[in-house]
């Protein structure tokens, strides 16, 4: 495969191709479901962005443009497969069934992670670049020891590949044959740094030097991502060790709502990527193959609007954390000193309430 080739099953124009290495058995219903996922995830992201602009969130990291990479890989997971996300994997969370409003908690500043990872086998968002790849590898080592038939998927960005931790994860996973899939969304940018400032060679090639396969997939092609991820997960479950998937995609939005990409990249680039939009191509495939009609699309739009408006309501109604939360849960076991610190602070606060303040 040449440097620029990537696994593709659905062309940007919506034509269905086949890749002999990655045969995909998929029903029309499944493709329609994937389309729905993509639309819902985008709508979710649009709403969250709006909520940030309106001051309801302190920050938001958009998944715009990366929906296919996230939904395709997320839908390849079977129950019990565990996902370790960065801070941007809203589409994977969706596929894993995490209630959407929960994803907003940390961005609103009410918690540092608002769901129980074991509920949906979806770990908390991790902000320290690359760290979670080691957690994923360790978790996979646990799966091995449990002799369970599951696998783990670790998400990270193109920038993250420069971190020592990610490369250490490659080594540990390789030498232990850990059942983990390394899923790198190469969205071409790490804040203002283009991919060239992290590597001179295609990222998927990194894997070979650590002794496991790497593959580059069209990250805007939900079918190709699904197919490639399924194969990698199957390998992992079969005890054949890790795979690195490089999903070639594009960060269509800013890095986060705090960022201003006009300072470092040309609008032209975005325009080009719009032609490869991950949703448009599925729609065009469904339409031109007569697998879906206007009603289908309209229904999904309606559903998406409903989800968005519920999300908005949920988050505006979200309760602020209680003060004691500062101290609770720092330790699992009793901790007399923090207990005392908490009580002292609560008493101090109450002294104001009682009008004791000078």
């Amino acid at each position, binding site marked *: 495969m040449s440097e620029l080739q990537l696994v593709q099953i659905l062309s940007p124009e919506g034509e269905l191709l086949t890749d002999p290495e990655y045969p995909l058995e998929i029903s029309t219903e499944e493709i329609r479901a994937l389309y729905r996922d993509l639309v819902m995830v985008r709508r979710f992201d649009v709403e969250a962005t709006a909520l940030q602009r309106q001051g309801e969130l302190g*920050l938001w990291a958009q998944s715009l443009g990366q929906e296919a990479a996230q939904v395709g890989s997320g839908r390849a997971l079977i129950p019990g497969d565990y996902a370790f996300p960065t801070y941007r994997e809203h589409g994977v969370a969706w596929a894993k069934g995490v209630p959407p409003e929960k994803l907003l908690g940390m961005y609103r500043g009410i918690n540092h992670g608002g769901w129980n990872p074991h509920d949906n086998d979806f770990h908390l968002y991790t902000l320290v670049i690359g760290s979670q790849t080691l957690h994923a590898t360790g978790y996979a080592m646990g799966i091995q020891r449990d002799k369970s038939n599951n696998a783990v998927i670790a998400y990270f960005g193109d920038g993250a590949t420069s*971190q020592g*931790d990610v490369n250490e994860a490659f080594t540990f996973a390789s030498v232990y044959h850990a059942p983990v899939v390394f899923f790198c969304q190469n969205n071409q940018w790490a804040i203002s740094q283009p991919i060239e400032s992290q590597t001179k060679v295609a990222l998927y090639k990194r894997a070979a030097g650590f002794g496991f396969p790497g593959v580059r997939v069209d990250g805007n092609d939900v079918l190709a991502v699904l197919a490639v991820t399924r194969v990698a997960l199957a390998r992992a479950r079969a005890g054949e060790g890790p795979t690195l998937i490089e999903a070639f995609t594009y960060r269509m939005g800013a890095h986060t709502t705090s960022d201003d990409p006009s300072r470092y990249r040309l609008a032209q680039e975005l325009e080009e990527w719009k032609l490869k939009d991950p949703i448009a191509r599925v729609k065009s495939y469904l339409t031109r193959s007569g697998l879906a009609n206007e009603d289908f699309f309209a229904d999904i739009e309606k559903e998406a609007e409903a989800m968005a408006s519920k999300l908005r309501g949920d988050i505006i109604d979200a309760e602020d954390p209680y003060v004691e*939360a*500062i101290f609770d849960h720092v330790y699992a076991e009793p901790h007399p000193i923090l207990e005392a*610190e908490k009580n002292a602070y609560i008493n101090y606060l109450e002294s104001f309430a009682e009008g004791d303040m*000078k």
Partner: protein
Amino acid sequence: MITIGKAINMGLRRALTEDPKVLVMGEDVGKLGGVFRVTENLQSEFGEDRIIDTPLAESGILGTAIGLALRGYRPVCEIQFDGFVYPAFDQITSQLAKMHSRSLGTLKLPVVVRIPYGGGIGAVEHHSESNETYFAHTAGLRVVTCSNPNDAYWMIQQAIQSDDPVIFFEPKRRYWDKAEIDEAAPSLGLHETRTVQEGNDLTLISYGPTVRTAIEVAAVCAKEGRSVEVMDLRTLSPLDLAPVFESAQKTGRVVILHEAPTFLGLGAEIASQITEECFYSLDAPVLRVGGFNVPYPPARLEEHYLPDLDRTLDAIDRAFAF
């Protein structure tokens, strides 16, 4: 009137202009000018060879900075946020801090590590930490912080001129504080504590982002008839405590205010030294006001976490109650 952020930018520009060996490196420091714009426009002025956009790897940044220093350069590394310095911790503690002494003085490591630190900007996790203890406890490093634009402007230059590694903490929630700067000459050396305002009844010691709080506290106290001496440490390692001891001997009461958790925070060291040096002068134990001993909480709780005017006044009351 210049902001602290801009003052550092100006200080960097001047250092880059005066010494061709000075380099700036870090994530997004080039075109973007850093996430806080502290390095804004430097790359267009000094080029990509001197304002170096790095791969996303903090150990890599520090490790290559050390190599550049060995070759005679003076790199100024930007760590994007306080909580992201830890991947570089090994390079900082085992290499940067120790290489000069390992070489019996033959190698110089004039590396500056700029860290925007502290909370108060409503940020997500890892973006609000005050982790100065880790560095101040590490022999071989120098650790300083600024609280106003004039110090920001001069201290960054002095840090770059130092032949020792300097950890330069920037009070991020004060980046936008404005004041005049005097471009003619610095008023103090890098490792000197400043008496911000004199007072007789109690000494209030602080540094970085909480100096402004301390000044506000002193104003409230003044109205209550308590005369508070406010000191801005500026240098955390080495500490410059002679003026602090003098003040403590005068006032007999000391409160230390910082954002970092109190447990093994700088306040602990300072309190111990004051007690040892001024034992017979103290009318009350040295009291500490700091962050709680917990991970920095989510943004919607940070006003509770951050030691503020009221908590400091409360400590002052307690000091007077002894």
